[in-house]
């Protein structure tokens, strides 16, 4: 004890150092170079029943579904028995409900009431995880009656959620409705047994996915794809959504996926960009199987400038009509490198293509206003080594690559990594159209063995 007392300062200092050192074992090192404030991803799982070819016992199905605690379906699909509806079931107001609204109010007394004045419980919204579900009365969405759309807009704007879903019993068939909800960032619409997805966020298509007449929207026709009883499982984790069709045994039959990061950050960070950085792109390695016509307007030697916009056939990969549904989708920056520090910049690692030094990229975007009123259009692009960009099938810019005709075998000029170089496209504003536009980019390496290829692009405008 005398020993301890004699050297008390030494032992106290040692104890303090030991305690401080010990805290290292209960601390997460910032391996990525920054501390993540919230490591736990927000997730949810929702079950949805659409119109089916056979009668379903929803109550039985919901009771035996594991891992799903919230269900939705049209009111007429839920069999009314002496037992009250399950409180985990949220109905979509439909024609059977409209015939006896008082019964609807009585059966679903647990639903929010009069969120939209005078609509009772027929129109409401609920929050689940980081998703907000809007249940609307489609019969009352008409030209001249914007009450539900105005309410939707107000609710989405206040206390924003990552995901916004809209459920209706029928298609209002109003282009203005679809345009409004797309602008609001609604990323899923469920109508009977059909799933509507904004094309901008789709990362994996289902088998029966197709475009619709509503600009920017695609449709998964689940009703015609499956004859057997099925349920849609909508799973969300952070910015990602997976919609899976399951049979009664829980087997997955088909699915599609989406990622809403691009529309989330475009709204918050860069409101004057048609395409923001780190967007999703369709991509494909260069190949002789990917057609690229030689336009008559192009001087293949490159000695003379392009005088007129190109006219490309629909099977040309640069054409707005080209079907890139079979291409892979990835988030920019895309590419590959052997430099470990630069690897951290890449979000989607592309396989090194030994057959061609080229990768092709495509993306569509929608312009709501008249593009002729723009004062400037700017291309922000990261690339290595060289690129050529096309807007609606016409070349708009190239750098670090030879003039004239190029193809899937062409090599770029050697170039260091170009970090978001900015090029003015003011002279190409006339190539934009109101509605859906397509931008296509080919990125070339300078050598077939070159280890580096990099691509990201943003398209911004000034009014």
């Amino acid at each position, binding site marked *: 004890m005398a020993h301890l007392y004699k050297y008390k300062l030494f032992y106290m200092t040692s104890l303090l150092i030991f305690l401080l050192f010990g805290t290292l074992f209960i601390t997460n090192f910032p391996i990525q170079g920054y501390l993540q404030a919230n490591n736990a991803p927000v997730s949810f799982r929702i079950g949805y029943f659409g119109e089916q070819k056979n009668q379903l016992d929803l109550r039985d199905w919901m009771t035996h579904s594991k891992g799903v605690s919230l269900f939705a379906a049209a009111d007429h699909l839920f069999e009314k028995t002496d037992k009250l509806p399950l409180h985990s079931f949220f109905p979509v107001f439909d024609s059977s409900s409209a015939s006896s609204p008082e019964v609807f109010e009585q059966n679903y007394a647990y639903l929010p009431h009069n969120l939209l004045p005078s609509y009772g419980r027929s129109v409401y919204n609920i929050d689940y995880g980081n998703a907000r579900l809007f249940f609307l009365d489609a019969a009352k969405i008409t030209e001249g009656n914007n009450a539900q759309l105005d309410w939707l807009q107000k609710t989405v704007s206040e206390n924003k959620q990552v995901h916004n879903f809209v459920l209706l019993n029928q298609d209002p068939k109003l282009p203005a409705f679809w345009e409004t909800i797309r602008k609001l960032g609604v990323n899923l619409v469920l109508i009977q047994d059909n799933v509507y997805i904004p094309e901008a966020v789709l990362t994996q298509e289902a088998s029966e996915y197709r475009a619709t007449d509503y600009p920017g929207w695609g449709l998964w026709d689940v009703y015609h794809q499956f004859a057997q009883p099925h349920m849609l499982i909508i799973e969300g984790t952070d910015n990602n959504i997976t919609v899976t069709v399951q049979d009664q045994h829980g087997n997955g039959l088909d699915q599609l996926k989406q990622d809403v990061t691009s529309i989330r950050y475009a709204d918050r960070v860069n409101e004057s960009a048609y395409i923001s950085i780190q967007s999703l792109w369709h991509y494909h390695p260069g190949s002789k199987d990917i057609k690229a016509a030689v336009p008559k307007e192009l001087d293949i030697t490159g000695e003379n400038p392009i005088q007129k916009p190109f006219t490309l056939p629909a099977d040309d990969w640069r054409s707005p009509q080209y079907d890139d549904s079979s291409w892979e989708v990835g988030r920019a920056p895309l590419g590959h490198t052997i430099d470990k520090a630069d690897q951290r910049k890449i979000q989607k690692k592309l396989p090194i293509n030994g057959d061609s030094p080229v990768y092709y990229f495509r993306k569509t975007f929608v312009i709501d206003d008249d593009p002729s009123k723009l004062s400037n259009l700017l291309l922000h692009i990261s690339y290595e080594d060289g690129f050529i960009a096309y807007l609606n099938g016409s070349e708009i810019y190239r750098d670090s690559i030879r003039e004239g005709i190029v193809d899937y075998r062409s090599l770029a000029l050697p170039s260091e990594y170009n970090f978001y170089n900015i090029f003015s496209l003011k002279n190409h504003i006339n190539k934009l159209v109101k509605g859906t536009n397509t931008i296509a980019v080919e990125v070339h390496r300078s*050598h077939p063995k070159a280890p580096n290829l990099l691509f990201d692009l943003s398209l911004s405008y000034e009014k």
Partner: protein
Amino acid sequence: MFGDHILKRVRVYIAWKWLFAALLIISISACGKVNESDEVDLIIALSATPEHIMIDNGNSYVWNNAKITINNSYFYESDMIPRGGTSLNLTEFSKQDGTAFDPKKNRLYSVSIYVPDALDGKPGVFNW
């Protein structure tokens, strides 16, 4: 007498010198290939990896319907070889019987390029 002898030796020396010069000039001109007026030379930079051949078309025009032959027996035909660098996989070259070039078994030792209509209707050639 003595001076005549020296003069004669000097004249012989000069004659041999001129003869040697003439032979030198003739031999130099004989080394060069006669420039055939019905062909143009293709301007090319060549490089290769074990699996690829890179051809840089340095001409001011695109080579249409180019036929490239490697090792005198493997062929590759292309509708168009653009200006600038083009990378071709050696496995795309094949013999007339369809046998593809195998980079693991074969090494590149000769390249020839023929463009039937290179410039002003004349064919373009290159040999290495």
